[in-house]
């Protein structure tokens, strides 16, 4: 069971959340290979991974999470607007 710190609600169990996949994805300038990469390729690192999660049964807010894929440790969470969380 992961304990995830929602930037608004504080530490909650993972059953209140839904995983939203890889976090920061920047659209390419326009070439097809760039779009293929964006749509179909993921980094899948062994180690810290920037993801998005949503507190679906709580405040319903999306936020950034950095999770270590080898230990499942949640390294950091922050609001989408980058500001400090309320929790």
């Amino acid at each position: 069971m992961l304990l995830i710190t929602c930037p608004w609600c504080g530490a909650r169990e993972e059953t209140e959340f839904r995983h939203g996949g890889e976090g920061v994805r920047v659209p390419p300038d326009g070439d097809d290979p760039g779009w293929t990469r964006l749509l179909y390729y993921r980094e899948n690192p062994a180690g810290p991974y920037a993801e998005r999660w949503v507190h679906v049964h709580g405040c319903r807010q999306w936020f950034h999470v950095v999770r270590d894929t080898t230990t499942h440790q949640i390294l950091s969470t922050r609001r989408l607007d980058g500001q400090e969380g309320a929790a």
Partner: protein
Amino acid sequence: MADGSPLAAHLGALISKASFDDARLTPGARVDLLSVRARRSAVQRVATALGQESLPPPNACRATILGDCFWLRPDEWLFATVPGGAEAAMKTVEPHLLDDGAVIDVSGSRIILELTGPRTRDVLSSCCPLDLDPSVFEPGRCAQSIIGKVSVLLHLVDATPRWHLFVPPSYVDYVVRWLADGIEGARAEQENALATTPHSSPVRMLP
């Protein structure tokens, strides 16, 4: 529903059978509910109009002239006002929102269940993942979480502890069954403890 209780008759029977002194489940008061969405300066304008310094911060509930106000998310608050009071409450809030918010009558979107007694933390912990320890969950706090698999808004009203659970009407049956199960467990645990305590009733001590 005929007797004015929001709970169907079979659920009334289920919860009265399960409840005991240390964990009692009852239908809560009927309320009208308002969802107030507000952003930027509208948040402060609404607070001021209600005579409050600010609207409640995350996971908190405050009493206002329109009834209990719950934080739901950064730009949404829920007001539980008196039955039939939604329209008047909307007229109080709406002029202060301007273009930065909306107020919607969501009465009937949730039914309140009241859970009281010293064992209720154990009962809730059997079906809800929140940390309900008194050191972190004190009276006046609220939180949206799950009971079983259903989204529920929990409010700790006082230190009895007395809880108000805001449950979607179509899931009341499901939630009551989870809670009745938890209450039954707490009661059985207590009876077992009594039966094995050396100083309990002499009748129980007979071989």
